């Protein structure tokens, strides 16, 4: 039964193989045409699978090509017991144009295969990414002046600007603070706002705070079912430390609870599951190790 099913799944190529044999025999010399067709069709019956029959029929095409070619060159005489008692039959070159036709067909098939492979390779290269540039050239890179980040605008209301007298003899360079923290809570404080000398090299680090990034898990997947049933909602503030690739470097902690222990626990699970999907803080565009808090809101859908 399984063999029958297997055979039924195989292609038969019945019409194609008979057509190929018929035309192959037709191209053979007249004296052999009928004999070869009957002989090949009989031998075709011994082939079981469809692919084997197709190979056989294709081989018969090639065989007729060889037979015609040899008969045209050598004028081979062949004996045939079925033709007559004398039995001497001359193989004549019946259709010599067949050779060029077959050759053209073979070239056409080969060309189609080449085009198919070229298309597949081109398509694969497109799917893998951008194609490499056609011409690789060496370019000398010129130094580009770095654009400085614009200074943050500071509200000047309530401020008094006191300009110290310039010392023309020995100007002193004020020390550069690497970590400046401003406190604007007390507006009554009068501050000196001395602009740095223009020739002093300054570098202001542009820092962008990170957070959950692409591919971060859904909050609803970590909503504790008991809290859903109880209808409890809340926001848990979780503090995480991540590396430049967005992976947790230590376990997340609850910085401010939601008021529900299970919600906070779900927030921690969510924060752990999101490892690798965080955006780290960036300094001048480069991600750095960083720790920051972020809120996870558990809210029921209305």
């Amino acid at each position: 039964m399984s063999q029958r099913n297997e055979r039924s799944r195989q292609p038969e190529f019945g019409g194609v193989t008979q057509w190929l044999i018929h035309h192959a025999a037709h191209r053979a010399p007249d004296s052999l045409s009928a004999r070869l067709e009957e002989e090949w069709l009989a031998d075709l019956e011994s082939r079981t699978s469809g692919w084997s029959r197709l190979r056989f029929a294709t081989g018969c095409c090639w065989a007729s090509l060889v037979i015609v070619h040899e008969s045209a060159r050598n004028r081979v005489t062949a004996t045939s017991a079925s033709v007559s008692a004398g039995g001497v039959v001359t193989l004549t070159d019946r259709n010599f144009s067949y050779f060029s036709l077959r050759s053209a067909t073979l070239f056409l098939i080969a060309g189609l295969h080449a085009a198919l492979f070229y298309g597949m390779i081109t398509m694969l290269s497109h799917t893998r990414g951008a194609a490499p540039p056609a011409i690789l050239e060496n370019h000398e890179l010129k130094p580009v002046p770095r654009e400085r980040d614009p200074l943050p605008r500071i509200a000047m209301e309530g401020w008094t600007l006191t300009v110290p007298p310039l010392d023309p003899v020995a100007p002193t360079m004020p020390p550069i603070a690497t970590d400046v923290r401003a406190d604007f809570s007390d507006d009554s404080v009068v501050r000196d706002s001395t602009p740095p000398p223009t020739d002093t090299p300054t570098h202001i680090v542009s820092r962008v705070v990170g957070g959950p990034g692409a591919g971060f898990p859904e909050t609803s997947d970590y909503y504790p079912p008991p809290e859903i049933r109880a209808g409890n909602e809340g926001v848990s503030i979780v503090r995480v430390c991540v590396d430049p690739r967005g992976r947790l470097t230590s376990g997340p902690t609850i910085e401010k609870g939601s008021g529900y222990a299970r919600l906070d626990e779900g927030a921690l699970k969510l924060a752990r599951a999101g490892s690798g999907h965080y955006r780290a803080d960036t300094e001048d565009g480069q991600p750095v190790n960083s720790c920051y808090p972020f809120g996870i809101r558990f809210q029921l859908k209305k």
Partner: protein
Amino acid sequence: MGKKEATVRMSLQTLRVLEAFLENPTEQLAGAEVHQRCGIASGTLYPILLRLESAGWFVSQWESIDPSSAGRPRRRLYRLTSTGLRRASEVFASFNRGVLA
């Protein structure tokens, strides 16, 4: 027979066909059976059979069956002639002597 014995180019495939017939020189084989014994593809096998037949090494005839009662078409059967048997034996003997005929 009086017929000129044509020379046959001895390729490896031709030798394999001859070897299949020399196993039982009186046996008649169809092309499909030769294919099963030698594993030579049809595109090579049938020109060899015709070439050997033209050279007088083989004779062929239709199988004497009734296709309607047998349920299959009649096959073309090939058999070694006495000339073919002698020449094929000489070829293989020369191989045994280390000389190519």
